């Protein structure tokens, strides 16, 4: 099979996975105004829960559902215990500087805690994680097409998440309310929007989306407290490249990264992958500082 095409296909399959993780980041950014570095930590945690269920003999789909539920619960807990008290703090002059940074730092703290807890509960051997559908590549004549039913499944999931998110954010009242809650809580509250509830909701949704990403990523990365670190950085880059506030941007960013990595690996050297990512990131920022599909900010005197 043509190398170029097979590279594109592999890149797309990987890119879909990055896109899924990036979508999770976009949800919390849009719904709670937070760049959540703990996202993949949460996903790791819930995937461990699923992994344990499977190991003790339960079906994949039961574990799947439990992981999604615990993902949204974990998201809610993080919001209720940490993010909400932070949001309710009146900003003093010293903290104004960091207004946007504080939740980021909080999420880094949460990540550290989740990884430590996972280590304490489940450390030991690195584990694998099963796929819900066959991940053996399709046969194509006497060769193989580097694409599996599982890849199709992931792409399907990404599309569904993308479409429902886009619909949710742009077409529904709750979506509008959620964005408003993130952008200006006071105005949102005065419009009758239950800001705290909206933020909790967005943490819950993104927690579930993150869990979903975790379930679908770990079959290729394996599971240990830290294996998803790299995915987080890639997903984050994807979201930034695409524009943090745009679900479609996240997907495009994910695909750019997936395909880019595959191309560099094939035609360049794998050693240059991160340099290439850096290059793409800088180029996007020079040309479109808010990402490919990111909203423009209007400056006014």
């Amino acid at each position: 099979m043509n190398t170029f095409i097979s590279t594109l296909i592999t890149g797309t399959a990987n890119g879909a996975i990055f896109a899924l993780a990036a979508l999770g980041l976009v949800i919390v950014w849009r719904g709670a105004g937070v760049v959540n570095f703990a996202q993949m930590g949460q996903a790791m945690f819930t995937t461990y829960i699923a992994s344990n269920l499977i190991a003790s003999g339960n079906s994949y789909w039961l574990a799947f559902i439990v992981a999604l539920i615990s993902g949204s619960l974990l998201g809610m807990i993080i919001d209720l215990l940490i993010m909400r008290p932070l949001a309710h703090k009146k900003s003093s002059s010293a903290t104004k500087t960091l207004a946007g940074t504080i939740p980021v730092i909080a999420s880094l703290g949460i990540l550290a805690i989740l990884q430590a807890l996972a280590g304490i509960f489940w450390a030991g051997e690195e584990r694998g994680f099963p796929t819900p559908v066959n991940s053996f590549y399709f046969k194509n004549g006497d060769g193989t097409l580097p694409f599996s039913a599982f890849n199709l499944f992931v792409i399907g999931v990404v599309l569904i998440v993308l479409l429902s998110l886009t619909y949710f954010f742009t077409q529904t009242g709750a979506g509008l309310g959620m964005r408003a809650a993130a952008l200006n809580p006071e105005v949102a509250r005065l419009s009758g929007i239950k800001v705290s509830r909206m933020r909790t909701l967005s943490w819950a949704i993104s927690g579930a989306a993150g869990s979903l990403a975790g379930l679908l990523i770990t079959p290729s990365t394996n599971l240990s407290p830290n294996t998803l670190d790299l995915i987080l950085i890639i997903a984050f880059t994807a979201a930034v490249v695409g524009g943090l506030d745009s679900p479609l941007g996240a997907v495009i960013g994910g695909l750019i990264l997936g395909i880019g990595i595959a191309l560099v690996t094939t035609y360049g050297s794998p050693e240059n992958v991160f340099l290439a990512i850096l290059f793409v990131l800088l180029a996007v920022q020079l040309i479109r500082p808010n990402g490919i599909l990111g909203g423009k900010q209007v400056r006014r005197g």
Partner: protein
Amino acid sequence: MDKYKNIWRKNLIKTLTLGVFLFLLSFTFEPYNQGQLALVLMLFIGVLSLTVLTGASGQISLGQGALMAVGGYSSASLITHLGASIWIGFLVAFFATAIFGLILGTAAARVSGPYLAGTTLVIALALPSVANRFESVLGGDVGLIVDFGTPPTWISNLIEVGYEQWQLWVVLPVALTALFFISNLMATRAGRSWQAVRDDEIGAAVSGIPVARTKVIVFVVSSAIAGLGGALYGLRGLVGPSVYPVSLSLTLLTAAILGGVGSISGAFIGTLIVVFLPDLIDWAISGLAVSEQLSNYLPALLTGFLLLATIIINPAGVMGAGHRKKH
């Protein structure tokens, strides 16, 4: 108004007092704590660079460790390949990182907040690739082995100096110099214009501040300082990718937050906490029968909790809410 007349004198006295205090204190220390104090000072320089960037200009970097790496590599390659002295190494680290900061700042001045955080993170990630690309100079993933060397004979003839103590003696003047210059900048027009840009770019621009240039300058200053810290940090034994991982940047950020971002004394206190926390934990659990699994992860767990507690209870850090630099 007199307060302004002798900025350098005031800061010099402050800096020297701290220096003399630490110098004398170091004689009462065992080698272990001398080494720890040296580490505090190295990281303090790094945290200082973050303080400048985040505290004064409102930009956040999750890749400050990568800037330290630039300093480390530029000095270490000079030292190993050309046999330069460590002091020349510092100078080169300083300027090389400044130039790197200039390039980075030119690109990054256009972006802010999470976008900048992401970019700096990827820079940190790309570091091993760079080291591998230029393996003959940068030593690939093995890195370059360097160290503080031994004190010159005129000192060792005078007094017996342990390796840790010598480390401290080298680091101390460099850290003090950085502290002195940063204190000066923060107390004058430069620091003021950085904060103005941080608070309101349009307001700053109409007041005559070239916003883009100012942001780049902040990057250059911050980078140069970080490079200096990185050069020192490398001299502890090795300059290599695993010496400047992403987690180093996070450590610096943690120290900056614990100490109160934007505050110079806070930067110092935060660094002290970060460096001595593991010792503290060791001491605290030494009598308890803690399972290995728990004790392994305890430092990370506690750092996480400490970070959260700091920003939830008092976002301004341990220096206290409402703390502001005063001239």
